[in-house]
C-alpha cells in the first residue's frame, strides 16, 4: 500500500475501490480498437515520404498490383480543407506538392486484404526534387535556409525579473553550462489505431484509440466541410497515451475517414504497426539549454539565466504550448531576485515533435537541477543544502511574479526524501566506497521541482470546459465527460468524486463512453487537469444534481441511503423524463495571468516534489543501473492512493528510460532505430524499487482538495539520475541524456 500521510474522513475519496474497467482488462474482454470487428472493413495504409524536404514530381503505381481493387486517396481527393486544425493551420493531412519531413503522409491506400494492402505500399513510387533540409537546431537558427516565417522560429518567450546582467560582475561565483535532452519515443504499447465510416450522406464517424475525442472532432470538420453534428468521434479503450494520443490521432482519423469517404462509406481501419508508429508519430521535443547562475560563496542564488531551444519539427502542432510549459518550469522552486528566461521552438525537417507527459517541463527542469548539482560541487556545498538555502517560501515571488500564498512544504518533502533514501548515510558511504573500488562506482543524488496542474495561464478559461451527470433508468448516476481513460484511472477517480459528493456507493456511478455525440466537451485529457479541473466540474455537477433532487422534493435534504437516492431518482425521472446537470469551468478568483508579459499566476496549483536516485555504474561495461528510487510529493488530496502511486511509479520508470536507455537515433531527421529491439525500454529487471510517498495539502479549488499529479513524475528523475551519475564519477557532469554506457565511456576517457 502506498504511503499517504493523511487521515481521510471520506467514504470514497482516499480509498481504493476497484477500477471501473479492471475486470475487462484482466480477463482480456476489454475491446481495444483492433479488437473491434466491422463488417466489410477495408485495411488502410499510409504511403509516406522518404525525403526530409522535397517537391513531389510524380506519383506512380507499379504495374502488377490490382490497383482497381484499391481505394487510393491523395491530397486532391480531399473534400474540404487539407489542414489539421490545431494551433496553426500549417500541417496538411496529406502532403500536396511539397513534403517537409520524412514519413510524411502522401498517399492513402485501402484494400480488403491486409497483406495485399501492406504489399501495395511499397509499389507506390514517389519521385521528388530534393530540397535542402534543416536537420538540427543549429542549422535552423543559422539562417540561409528559411522554411518558416522569417527566422524558422515558431515561437519565443521571454520572462524577466530583475536584471541578471547587473549581477554577474558582482557575484562571488558565476557558473555556466550547456545541456541537452534527447527526443523520447512514446511507446504506448497499443499503437495508433482508428476505424472510420464516412460518406456525404451519413457524415463521418470515427472510433479510435485517443486522449481527446474533441480534438479529432475539431480536426475532421474542416477536412470534410461538415458541421458539428455530422462528425462523431468515439473513444475506444486506449492502451496508453502519455501525450502521444493527444494531437496525433487526428491524422490517422482523417486518413481513415478520407478512404472511407472515397470507398462509398465502407469502414476503413488503420492500425499502425510498431515500426510505422515509431517512425512517423510524435516524440518528446529535444531541447538544448544554456544555464548561467550567479552565487555568493555560501550558495545564495543571486541571478539565473536560462536559454532553451526546442526542436519543434516541420509543423507547429503543439510546440508553442509545449515551449510555454517548458518556459514556466525553467526557474524551479527557488527564490531569486534576478531571472531571465529566454526560450524558442524552431523549425526543422523532422516529423513534428509533440505532446509527451511533462509537456516541455522535463526538458527545462533537467538543465536547471543538474546545474544546481554542478554548482553545489563547485561551491563545495552539499547539493541538498544549496537547494535548501534558496527554496521558495511563502511570500516569495516566482520569476513570473506569482506570489507564493502559502508554504510549499518543499523543505519537509526534501528531508522526508532524504530520510527514506538514507541520503546522508549513502553520500558518505558511497564517497568512501568510490575511493577504494575501481569496479563499481556508486552514486546518489536528488532533485527538487514543481509541476503546474491544468492548462497554462489563461488556457483553462479559453477551453471553457463543460462536464455533467445524468440519472440512469435504474436510479444510478452516469458521468458525462469527454475525458478518456488511458490507464491513468480517470473513470475511477471521477466516479469516486461523484460518489463522495452525492453520498452514494461508488458502484452507483457509471461513466459514459466519451463520444462526441453524447458527452459535452470537458476539454482534453492532458496537462494533469483531468482529476483536478474536470473532477471539480463533476463534483459541482454532483452538488447541483443533488440540489435539483432535493428541490423537487424527491430527496430529503438531510442525508439519504443508497436506496433512498435510487427511489428519489426514479421518482424524478418519472415526473420529468430525464435529469442532466452540467457545470462549466470557473477560474479560481485569485488567479490572473498576462499572456503578453508572461507575468502572473502561470498555474492555479502546483504539485511539489523531491526525488532521490540511487545507482551504481559497472566500470567494466559503463552501464548505470538504478538501485533504488524515492519519490516524495505533495499533490493535494490523493483521491485513490493505489492509482496515484501507480502514476508516480510509471512516470518515474518512463523518466528512467529517458535518462539512461532510450535513444532515438535520428537520420535525415527521422528515427532510424524504430524497432523495440533497438529502442531500449527498461524492463522489470532494469527498473529499481520505486518508493512513493504522498503529502497532502488540500487545494481549495480542486475536488476534495486534489491537484494534478500525472506528469509530475516525469520531471524529477532525469536530473536526479544524471546528478547521481556525476556523483559516481567523482563529480564529473555528463550534461546530456540519455546517459548510455557509450556516453559514460566517452566522458571518462
Amino acid at each position, binding site marked *: 500500500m502506498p504511503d499517504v500521510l493523511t487521515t481521510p474522513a471520506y467514504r470514497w475519496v482516499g480509498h481504493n475501490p476497484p477500477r471501473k474497467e479492471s475486470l475487462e482488462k484482466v480477463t482480456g474482454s476489454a475491446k481495444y480498437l483492433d479488437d473491434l470487428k466491422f463488417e466489410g472493413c477495408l485495411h488502410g495504409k499510409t504511403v509516406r515520404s522518404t525525403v526530409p524536404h522535397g517537391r513531389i514530381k510524380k506519383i506512380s503505381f507499379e504495374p502488377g498490383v490490382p490497383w482497381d481493387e484499391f481505394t487510393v486517396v491523395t491530397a486532391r481527393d480531399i473534400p474540404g480543407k487539407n489542414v489539421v486544425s490545431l494551433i496553426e493551420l500549417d500541417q496538411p493531412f496529406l502532403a500536396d506538392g511539397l513534403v517537409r519531413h520524412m514519413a510524411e503522409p502522401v498517399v492513402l491506400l485501402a484494400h480488403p486484404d491486409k*497483406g495485399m494492402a*501492406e504489399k501495395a505500399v511499397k509499389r507506390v513510387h514517389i519521385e521528388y526534387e530534393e530540397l535542402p533540409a534543416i536537420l538540427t537546431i543549429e542549422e535552423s537558427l543559422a539562417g540561409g535556409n528559411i522554411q518558416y516565417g522569417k527566422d524558422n522560429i515558431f515561437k519565443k518567450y521571454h520572462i524577466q525579473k530583475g536584471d541578471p546582467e547587473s549581477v554577474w560582475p558582482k557575484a562571488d561565483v558565476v557558473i555556466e553550462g550547456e545541456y541537452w535532452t534527447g527526443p523520447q519515443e512514446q511507446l504506448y504499447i497499443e499503437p495508433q489505431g482508428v476505424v472510420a465510416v464516412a460518406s456525404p450522406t451519413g457524415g463521418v464517424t470515427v472510433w479510435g484509440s485517443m486522449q481527446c475525442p474533441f480534438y479529432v472532432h475539431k480536426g475532421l470538420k474542416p477536412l470534410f466541410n461538415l458541421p458539428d453534428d455530422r462528425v462523431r468521434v468515439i473513444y475506444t479503450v486506449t492502451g496508453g497515451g502519455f501525450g502521444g494520443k493527444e494531437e496525433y490521432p487526428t491524422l490517422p482519423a482523417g486518413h481513415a475517414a478520407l478512404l472511407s469517404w472515397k470507398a462509398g462509406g465502407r469502414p476503413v481501419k488503420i492500425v499502425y*504497426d510498431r515500426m510505422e508508429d515509431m517512425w512517423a508519430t510524435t516524440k518528446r521535443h529535444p531541447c538544448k539549454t544554456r544555464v548561467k547562475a550567479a552565487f555568493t560563496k555560501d550558495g545564495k542564488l543571486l541571478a539565473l539565466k536560462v536559454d532553451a531551444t526546442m526542436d519543434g519539427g516541420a509543423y507547429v502542432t503543439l510546440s508553442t504550448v509545449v515551449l510555454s510549459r517548458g518556459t514556466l518550469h525553467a526557474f524551479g522552486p527557488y527564490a531569486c531576485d534576478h531571472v531571465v528566461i529566454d526560450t524558442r521552438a524552431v523549425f526543422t525537417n523532422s516529423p513534428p515533435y509533440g505532446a509527451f507527459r511533462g509537456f516541455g517541463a522535463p526538458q527545462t527542469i533537467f538543465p536547471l537541477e543538474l546545474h544546481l548539482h554542478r554548482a553545489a560541487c563547485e561551491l563545495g556545498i552539499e547539493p541538498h543544502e544549496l537547494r535548501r538555502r534558496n527554496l521558495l517560501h511563502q511570500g516569495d515571488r516566482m520569476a513570473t511574479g506569482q506570489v507564493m500564498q502559502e508554504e510549499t512544504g518543499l523543505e519537509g518533502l526534501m528531508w522526508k526524501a532524504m530520510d527514506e533514501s538514507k541520503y546522508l548515510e549513502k553520500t558518505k558511504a558511497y564517497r568512501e566506497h568510490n575511493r577504494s573500488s575501481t569496479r563499481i562506482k556508486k552514486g546518489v543524488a536528488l532533485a527538487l521541482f514543481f509541476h503546474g496542474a491544468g492548462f497554462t495561464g489563461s488556457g483553462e478559461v479559453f477551453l471553457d470546459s463543460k462536464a455533467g451527470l445524468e440519472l440512469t433508468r435504474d436510479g444510478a448516476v452516469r458521468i458525462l465527460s469527454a475525458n478518456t481513460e488511458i490507464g491513468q484511472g480517470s473513470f475511477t477517480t471521477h466516479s469516486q468524486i461523484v460518489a463522495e459528493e452525492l453520498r452514494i456507493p461508488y458502484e452507483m456511478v457509471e461513466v459514459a463512453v466519451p463520444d462526441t455525440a453524447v458527452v459535452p466537451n470537458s476539454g482534453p485529457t492532458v496537462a494533469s487537469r483531468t482529476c483536478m479541473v474536470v473532477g471539480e466540474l463533476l463534483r459541482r455537477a454532483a452538488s447541483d444534481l443533488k440540489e435539483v433532487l432535493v428541490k423537487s422534493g424527491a430527496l430529503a435534504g438531510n442525508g439519504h441511503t443508497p436506496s433512498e437516492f435510487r427511489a428519489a431518482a426514479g421518482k424524478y425521472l418519472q415526473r420529468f423524463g430525464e435529469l442532466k446537470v452540467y457545470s462549466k469551468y470557473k477560474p479560481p478568483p485569485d488567479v490572473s495571468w498576462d499572456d503578453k508579459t508572461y507575468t502572473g499566476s502561470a498555474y492555479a496549483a502546483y504539485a511539489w516534489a523531491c526525488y532521490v536516485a540511487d545507482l551504481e555504474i559497472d566500470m567494466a561495461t559503463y552501464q548505470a543501473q538504478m538501485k533504488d528510487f524515492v519519490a516524495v510529493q505533495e499533490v493535494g488530496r490523493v483521491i485513490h492512493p493505489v492509482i496515484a502511486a501507480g502514476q508516480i511509479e510509471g512516470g518515474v520508470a518512463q523518466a528512467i528510460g529517458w535518462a539512461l536507455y532510450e535513444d532515438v*537515433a535520428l537520420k535525415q531527421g527521422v528515427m532510424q532505430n524504430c524497432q523495440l529491439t533497438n529502442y*531500449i525500454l527498461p524492463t522489470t529487471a532494469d527498473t529499481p524499487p520505486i518508493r512513493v510517498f504522498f503529502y497532502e495539502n488540500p487545494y481549495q479549488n480542486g475536488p476534495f482538495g486534489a491537484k494534478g499529479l500525472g506528469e509530475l513524475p516525469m520531471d524529477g528523475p532525469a536530473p536526479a539520475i544524471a546528478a547521481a551519475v556525476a556523483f559516481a564519477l567523482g563529480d564529473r557532469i555528463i550534461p546530456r541524456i540519455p546517459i548510455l*554506457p557509450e556516453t559514460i565511456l566517452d566522458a571518462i576517457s
Partner: protein
Amino acid sequence: MKSSIADFAVISPRTLAEALASLRQTPPPVPLAGGTDIMVLLNAGQLEPGVYLNLYSVPELRRPIEVSAGVRDAGTWGAGGADPPGEVRLSALTTYADVRRHAEVRRLLPMLPLAAREIGAVQIQSRATWAGNIANASPAADGVPPLMAYDATVELSSAAGVRQVALSEFYSGYKQTARRPDELITGIRIPVPAPGSIDYFRKVGTRKFQAISKVLLAGLVELGGSREIRKIRLVFASVMPFTYRARKTESVLEGRRLEPGAVSLAVETLRTELKPIDDIRSTARYRLKVACNLLEEFLGTTMGC
C-alpha cells in the same frame, strides 16, 4: 506486420529423410526451427518470399539432450564409479529452456545455462534453438560463443550423409557458414571440458534481458599445476562481423604462466586483434574497450581463484 504471408509456403515433412530430400530442390527451402528469428523478419517485411521447411514436424529432430560417457580417467574420477560424462549432444530443436532445465548440463557445461538465461526472455527461450542460433549466423548470437569455447562440433546432415564440422571453423564472414544449402544441422556435440577448467561468461547487452548483445565473451581456461595455461578459448559475440574466436590472443597466452604480466600482454594483443563493428547498437570504441575489460576481468578472477 509488413509481409503478406501469401508470398510464402511451408513444407512440413514427417521424417528426416523427407526433410533432407526436400533440401535438394532448387532453390532449397529455408529451415524453420523455433521461428524466433524468421518470424521477426517476416513481421518486418524483411523475410525473403519462398518456401520454408518446418522442422517441428520431424520427430527425429526433437530428441532429448543426450549425455554420453567419456574415457575413464582414474586420476580424476576415482576408480570403480560410473564412467565420467564425456560429451553432450543437443538435437536440432533443443531449446534454451531445455538446457536451463537439464540438471546435468547445468553441472557439466555451466556456460550454456548462463547464456540461455540471458537470451531474450523466458518466452523466447522456450522457442529458440541452439542449432537455429548457429545457423542464423548472427554476429550477436549469444548461444554460439559458449559452444565454441567448449569446442563444440556441428553435425551437418544431407541426403548424402553426415559430416562433423568444428564450430570454430563454421563461420567465414558475415552470415557466411560452412552449411551447404542441402544440409541441415541435426545435432551439436559438446565435449565436456577437463576437470578443473575455469569458465567465464558475460553478456553486455543494451539492458538486462530482452537485449541484443553489444559485447559478449565466453572464455574457458585449463590451467596446469604451476598455473601455466594449457589451453584457453576466448570467443566474442557482437564485436566482429561473426562470432569470433580470438586465436591470436589465445596463442599469446597458451603455455604462459597466468600472472599480471600475461594479463596485460593478452589485453594488448586483443586490442590490436579485434576490429570491432560500429552499428546502431553501439560504437566500435565501446566494443573494443569493453571486450578488453571483459578479458581482464576473466583472467583477473581466474587468478584470484
